[in-house]
């Protein structure tokens, strides 16, 4: 079959269903759109099948093992689990199987270093870049990095490895810029936060960084309101930035700021096209059509664009046929998205300019800020860059350590084409 396959470890039920349905909805709709509009890439059509993980690691592993071989002869291009836990558990497997593991906007920070992690791609934004960008934004608002000195910042994080991941970087930045950092943990799942917010009320910080997940986000906003903390001083991180995070808090969410790598909304040509070719044709994947153009959905679309682009790039080198995972990886490492290319894709403003390489599996590291007006997000800033130069040595050190533990000899990225 002249088809390229995407194994989808999706989650459409359970506590994190909102993320799963939105993301995979957008992803699938984009693949459908490419198939419908262009007949695939160079005549190679996309197929996919789903396997429900409920965000549970071992289900994700089972799904991975089940789907990795491809479908009806169509080889798998890449896996996109959208779950930190599953990504970790399939990291070594996918390396052994030579299948790119895409962790857009999340994943292991050190997997940015592609010389040690040849098959893992924390596309666009890894966790370290995320906080760095937020601090840079706060600095911008305060009138410069030097003005951070003496500022009080509280980070309210989810009590999980994901939540803690960025703490060392925050501490590093605090030391560097001289702001006062308080780290407060909210135990999983985070449906009661009275004490944390009372602590915040006592500390009277200038900003609160919300590093939440799932139900923790709306509860944080509600409790903030209850304890009288101004919402427009709360900055949500990349997993606290969807409609599902803000809307349930109702009026309490008004003014809430968060970062995003991709604006929500439908005002992009590619979304218009998806609407035309897929949704209007009655093939849209979303159960709730109102979610078209929301944050999670658009992230799925962005993810689709990047995956398809990798296939396209790789086909240019390896031939117009279904590709192996190894070939697709080359494609990912050679993605070059500049404004011109983005415009061709109809995604200018939706996707940040990206340039990936063997050494850099993240590529972007920029975010925009958006604010909730009570019913939708409005972008309130231009792209704000993370201080990637500062972070790079830390990432490399961590990757080196991993390589040592696992007995991996890093690739020499100088020699990769």
């Amino acid at each position, binding site marked *: 079959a002249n088809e390229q396959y995407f194994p989808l470890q999706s989650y459409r039920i359970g506590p994190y269903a909102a993320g799963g349905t939105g993301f995979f909805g957008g992803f699938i709709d984009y693949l459908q759109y490419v198939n419908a509009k262009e007949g695939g890439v160079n005549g190679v059509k996309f197929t996919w099948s789903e396997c429900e993980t409920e965000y549970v690691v071992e289900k994700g592993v089972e799904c991975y093992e089940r789907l990795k071989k491809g479908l009806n002869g169509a080889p798998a291009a890449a896996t996109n689990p959208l779950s930190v836990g599953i990504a970790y558990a399939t990291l070594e497997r996918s390396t052994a199987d030579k299948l790119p593991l895409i962790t857009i906007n999340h994943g292991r920070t050190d997997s940015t270093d592609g010389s040690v992690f040849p098959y893992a791609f924390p596309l666009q934004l890894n966790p370290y870049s995320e906080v760095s960008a937020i601090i840079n934004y706060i600095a911008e608002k305060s009138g410069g990095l030097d003005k951070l000195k003496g500022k009080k910042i509280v980070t309210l994080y989810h009590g999980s490895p994901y939540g803690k991941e960025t703490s060392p970087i925050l501490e590093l930045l605090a030391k560097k810029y001289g702001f006062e950092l308080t780290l407060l943990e*909210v135990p999983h799942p985070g449906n*009661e936060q*009275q*004490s944390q917010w009372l602590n915040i009320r006592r500390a009277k910080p200038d900003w609160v960084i919300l590093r939440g997940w799932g139900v923790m986000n709306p*509860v944080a906003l509600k409790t903030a*309101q209850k304890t009288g903390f101004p919402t427009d001083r709360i900055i949500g991180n990349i997993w606290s930035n969807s409609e599902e995070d803000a809307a349930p*808090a109702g009026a309490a969410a008004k003014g809430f700021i968060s970062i995003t790598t991709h604006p929500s909304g439908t005002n992009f040509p590619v979304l218009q096209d998806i609407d035309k070719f897929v949704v209007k044709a009655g093939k849209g994947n979303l159960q709730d059509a109102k979610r078209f153009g929301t944050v999670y959905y658009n992230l799925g679309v962005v993810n689709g664009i990047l995956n398809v682009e990798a296939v396209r790039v790789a086909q240019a080198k390896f031939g117009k046929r279904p590709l192996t995972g190894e070939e697709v990886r080359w494609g990912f490492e050679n993605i070059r998205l500049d404004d011109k290319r983005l415009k061709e894709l109809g995604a200018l403003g939706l996707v940040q300019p990206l340039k990936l390489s063997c050494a850099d599996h993240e590529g972007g590291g920029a975010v925009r800020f958006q604010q909730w007006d009570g019913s939708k997000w409005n972008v309130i800033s231009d792209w704000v860059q993370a201080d990637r130069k500062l972070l790079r040595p830390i990432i490399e050190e961590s990757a080196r350590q991993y390589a040592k533990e696992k007995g991996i000899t890093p690739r020499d990225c100088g020699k990769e084409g």
Partner: protein
Amino acid sequence: MSFFFEVLLGGLLAGVMYSLIAIGFVLIYKASGVFNFAQGSMVLFAALTFVSLLERSVPFWGAFVFTLLIMLVLAWAIERFVLRQLVNRPPITLFMATLGLSYIIEGLAQAVWGAQVHGLDLGVSDEPFELGGMLLSQFDLFAAAVAGTLVVLLSLLFNKTRTGIALRAVADDQLAALAVGIRLHRLWLIVWAVAGVVGLVAGLLWGARLGVQFSLSLIVLKALPVLIIGGFTSIGGAIVGGLIIGASEKLAEVFIGPIIGGGIENWFPYVLAMLFLLVRPAGLFGERAIERV
């Protein structure tokens, strides 16, 4: 010092919210000896049904009544297809059955209403007002009033009515209850229906706070230590337990948390409950197991 009181008060009010869930538990345990793990799912189901109806522009009270009816049907189905088949079986079996039930109810809730996250506004303001330097919200007071009312009503039911005697008899010895002609099926139906109603009330209040979503079913875990401190068989205990847990867990998080590393709220209530149990093995107000030889 006033911060201390603020935390204390906040804790007490949070505790009332836990009690709301615990009451549903106690009700079923006291009346049938079943440790009902599906209470959380029932809360989710009720809230989800209600909010989905609202979103389909059913008026508030219409949605409320309709959800009540659905909870009744649910209770009926549970009695008919699960409990009735498990008469006189050991408690652990019934406990497991409720775990099975929670799968069914959660699956059903999501199948019918989808997995989206919904906001819910009860029209009771959750914005704080100041009272003597402390922040209070109308919503909390409202929740406390609701919980209080439930406790009074249910205590009356159990202790002052004949149905109450029958319910307690069933919890003690189902075989004997059958032998004296107690209509087990009807009682169970009543109890589970009432538990469904309590679940609905809890679901609305919690839903207004968290948003109505899957995680609602997880608040059961908050209710367990409450239940244990109060005793499985005491309705009043559910409130007292809730207050104790709420207050102490907030105080611990705020004042001890920073010393040993934060986020202790998940286990602290359990350890506290454990300490209580070491002194009173059946909770503060629970019935002691009677064992005569």
